[in-house]
């Protein structure tokens, strides 16, 4: 009802605004039939809607106006200025009432009879003088309307096709912008042109953001069908269910809503059919007679989380295992070693159901495997939380929008493909020592850290040529809908990008291996691979390889450990070539030189908002971007700037010549080259005792935040030096004792003394004002840094 009312209000307000001009034009030319019709329609609509919405005052007003206008339309009377004024007066009153309804305020208490009488008055005495009275009444009303413009968000209804067209237009614009940007780069730099182009770029980007918002829809729509379904099912099965729906106002992409409807419906059905028990059994189990079913949606980062929880019987994992064994999918031996979670995951196996018998509602073979496949197809994740006898909670996490997903660009057979990032568990190169690929009768098996995976090469699945390539191939471990991860070999993983995904035509989708397509900036369409589809196309076995057996294997493997380990060959900034064990390196990254800084004797770098120590103590570079290795032991991380990363080689675990010296552990000979091997122990041991934590260093609070010098010169200097800078005194957060306050006036200094933190007072003059003056000349960088650093202790 509220929605209808809201719609009525916004519709009425919009029409009123549009009609105001019409009425005036109609007054100027009373014979204008079209305008008269438009005004008549307005009153007619209002009358119709408010009868339904039970708004008697609206009805009475519009009815009166409609009568008069109908007479005019029928030619039974002439419109004169007085009539027009009276009609305007009525419209204004309706507007005023609408406003009041919209804001939930009490309806203005004027007498409508007067207005209605004015409408009819001219019919008896067509003298123009009478027209003044309603005009006078109308004036204050009009003012009242103007005052209420801010009431509620205003909406219009648009056909979806128009929005799609708009989206396409914006996409076109982005492509054109990209092409323009390429063209501009080819030409000589023209700062003026660049500026204009920058502005255009920002506009286009903003526009794209706004347009993508038009695709959003409230989750309410997803929920709309649930209450009815729950009621009907409950009645059919003789169960009583208390349904709670929450988070209907969360918004998600409307295509995504479509995609989630089926899995959600299925889960709710399952929950009622298998989860929630009959009232008798519930009472016997000491639960309230009515089962509780709760569906809630919330946004978490760029994901929508939909949780469906019930207080039913939960999943009987023992039965699942029994069924799986009966179906020959599981050996008793393997079952005995399975963890509870492993057992629970069996529910995602095709054709497994805990339903004792096939009911009309569920248990018809379309099971959780399909639900999972559907959720994963849209880049979502499904998780179960089972409390046997107490209930089951299923969480669906789906991306906010179907159209933009993080994806990996891979190369295979000379072509590029996209893969949803969510489907990829890990990426390895096939020369990695953790990976062993063996082949038997055409079947490839990739053993990664002693876990055996089915392996397929993308080129084989898609029947493409597999040209020989110089570098190693990339092996990706993919999560698949069948629950069994598999390894996918591709020529290379090229890039990681946010991809705008659009549906592929049914012809292409029919192949079963593609989930959609995307149009990257280069204008060459690219296909999005469907992990589950690939596994199906390759007819990979879906037999559960039990975890415990793998672990035993793993231990056995570890005993016969290999002598060689992978190492990264790199060039130090000082020019030497060295080796570092690859497993220590989290990744290699180019970092802006400006992010490096020094604090006391320790160098550090700002990464992802944290300070990370720099191992070799370098903080100044002659390049803008520095290639850096990011290292990690089990808890600390460190950064190691290098001149260049050369390649990955196999090095002996123990260097050929052991020579512990500083950060070096010895020298190894790789391909005839003597290379120093870094000692990871020494590297991490040399790190500062504590992690360089920003809060420990305290913030620099710049009191004179309005001052140009402070903003433009001091703040950047401090930021560059790695300090956290805050302009002005923090209003909400309390000043921390470790914070340092920088100011120029003595009064601020006194205030700061009272707050209890350290103060560095700056002065503009190179000379101190007197012996008592503890301030520092503002361009004396060394003294300034020492003051900040020293006082922080």
């Amino acid at each position, binding site marked *: 009802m509220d929605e209808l009312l809201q719609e009525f209000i916004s519709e009425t307000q919009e029409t009123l605004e549009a009609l105001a001009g019409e009425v005036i034009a109609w007054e100027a030319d009373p014979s204008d039939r079209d305008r008269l019709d438009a005004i008549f329609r307005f009153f007619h609509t209002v009358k119709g809607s408010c009868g339904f919405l039970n708004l008697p005052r609206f009805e009475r007003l519009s009815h009166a106006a409609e009568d008069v206008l109908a007479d005019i339309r029928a030619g039974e009377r002439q419109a004169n200025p007085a009539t027009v004024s009276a009609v305007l007066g009525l419209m204004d009153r309706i507007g005023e009432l609408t406003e009041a309804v919209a804001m939930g305020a009490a309806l203005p208490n004027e007498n409508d009879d007067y207005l209605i009488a004015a409408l009819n008055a001219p019919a008896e005495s067509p003298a123009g003088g009478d027209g003044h009275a309603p005009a006078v009444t109308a004036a204050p009303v009009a003012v009242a309307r103007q005052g209420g413009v801010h009431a509620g968000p205003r909406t219009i209804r648009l056909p979806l096709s128009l929005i799609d067209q708009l989206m*396409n237009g914006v*996409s*076109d614009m*982005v*492509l054109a912008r990209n092409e323009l940007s390429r063209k501009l780069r080819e030409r000589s730099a023209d700062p003026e042109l660049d500026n204009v182009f920058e502005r255009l770029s920002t506009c286009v980007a903003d526009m794209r953001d706004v347009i993508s918002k038009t695709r959003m829809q409230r989750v309410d729509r997803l929920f709309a069908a649930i209450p009815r379904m729950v009621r009907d099912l409950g009645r059919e099965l003789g169960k009583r269910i208390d349904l709670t729906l929450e988070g209907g106002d969360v918004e998600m992409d409307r295509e995504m809503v479509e995609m989630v409807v089926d899995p959600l419906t299925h889960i709710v059905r399952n929950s009622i059919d298998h989860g929630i028990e009959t009232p008798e059994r519930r009472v016997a189990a000491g639960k309230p007679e009515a089962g509780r079913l709760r569906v809630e949606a919330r946004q978490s980062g760029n994901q929508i989380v939909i949780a469906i929880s019930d207080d039913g019987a939960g999943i009987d994992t023992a039965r699942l295992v029994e069924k799986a064994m009966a179906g020959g999918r599981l050996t008793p031996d393997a079952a005995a070693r399975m963890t509870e979670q492993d057992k629970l995951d069996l529910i995602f196996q095709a054709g497994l159901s805990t339903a004792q018998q096939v009911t009309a509602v569920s248990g018809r073979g379309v099971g959780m495997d399909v639900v999972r496949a559907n959720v994963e197809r849209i880049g979502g994740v499904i998780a179960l939380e089972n409390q046997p006898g107490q209930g089951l909670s299923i969480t669906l996490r789906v991306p906010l929008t179907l159209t933009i997903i993080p994806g990996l660009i891979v190369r295979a*057979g000379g*072509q590029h493909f996209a893969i949803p990032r969510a489907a990829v568990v890990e990426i390895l190169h096939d020369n990695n020592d953790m990976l062993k690929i063996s082949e038997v009768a055409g079947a490839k098996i990739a053993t990664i850290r002693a876990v055996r995976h089915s392996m397929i090469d993308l080129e084989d*699945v*898609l*029947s*493409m040529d597999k040209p020989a390539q110089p570098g190693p191939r990339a092996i990706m471990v993919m999560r698949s809908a069948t629950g069994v991860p598999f390894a996918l070999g591709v020529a290379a993983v090229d890039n990681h990008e946010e991809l705008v995904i*659009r*549906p*592929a*035509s*049914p*012809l*292409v989708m*029919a*192949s079963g*291996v*593609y989930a959609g*397509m995307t*149009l990257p900036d280069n*204008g*060459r*369409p*690219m*296909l999005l691979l469907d992990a589950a589809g690939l596994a199906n*196309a390759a007819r990979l076995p879906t037999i559960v390889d039990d975890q415990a057996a793998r672990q035993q294997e793993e231990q056995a493997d570890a005993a016969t450990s290999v002598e060689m380990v992978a190492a990264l060959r790199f060039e130090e900034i000082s020019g030497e070539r060295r080796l570092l064990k690859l497993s220590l390196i989290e990744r290699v990254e180019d970092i802006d030189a400006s992010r490096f800084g020094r604090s006391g004797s320790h160098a550090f770098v700002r990464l992802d908002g944290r300070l990370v120590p720099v191992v070799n103590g370098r903080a100044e570079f002659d390049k803008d971007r520095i290639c850096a290795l990011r290292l990690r032991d089990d808890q600390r991380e460190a950064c190691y700037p290098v001149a260049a990363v050369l390649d990955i080689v196999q090095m002996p675990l123990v260097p050929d010549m052991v020579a512990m010296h500083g950060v070096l552990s010895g020298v190894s000979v790789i391909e005839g080259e003597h290379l120093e091997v870094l000692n990871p122990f020494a590297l991490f041991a040399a790190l500062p005792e504590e992690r360089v934590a920003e809060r420990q260093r305290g913030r620099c609070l710049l009191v004179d935040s309005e001052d140009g010098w402070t903003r433009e010169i001091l703040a950047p200097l401090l930021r560059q030096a790695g300090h956290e800078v805050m302009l002005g005194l923090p209003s909400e957060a309390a000043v921390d004792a470790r914070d340092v306050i920088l100011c120029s006036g003595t009064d601020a200094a006194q205030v700061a003394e009272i707050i209890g933190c350290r103060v560095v007072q700056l002065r503009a003059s190179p000379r101190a004002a007197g012996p008592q003056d503890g301030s520092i000349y503002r361009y004396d960088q060394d003294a300034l840094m020492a003051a900040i650093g020293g006082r922080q202790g």
Partner: protein
Amino acid sequence: MDNLYLFAILAGTRVAVEAGEVEAVVRLTDISPVPGMGAHVAGLSALRSRVLTIVDVAAIVHGRPLPPEQRGLAVIADISGHSYGLMLDSVSDICRVPEGELPLRGQLDPAWALYARAVVEYDGHPWLLVSLASFIEGASAAQAA
């Protein structure tokens, strides 16, 4: 129906297509192949920000893909919400034929039976009136088989 037809050579045969079905005829520059598909899908091509599924009609009708050097023209059509480009051998004309479509006469090559509806007489020759959507349906059917 305004009897406006596109006359073209499609899979080596003279065909007429109702102009209402045709969005545009474009020269394809770049086709990205779709591996793992039958020959009937030649690939994907971008037309501004739209992605077209390029369909090889010759492969659908005769099972013989159009040789790459002959790939060039495609007729763009929107079929059930998706944009397709159907590869043509060549385009003759777009023109109004007042007589409109005439019933089929003679023994039609079975390969064309699925796609031809009628005949349009133009320029002294009969042209087979085909529906673009039927090729897509034909391709889907072939795929399912």
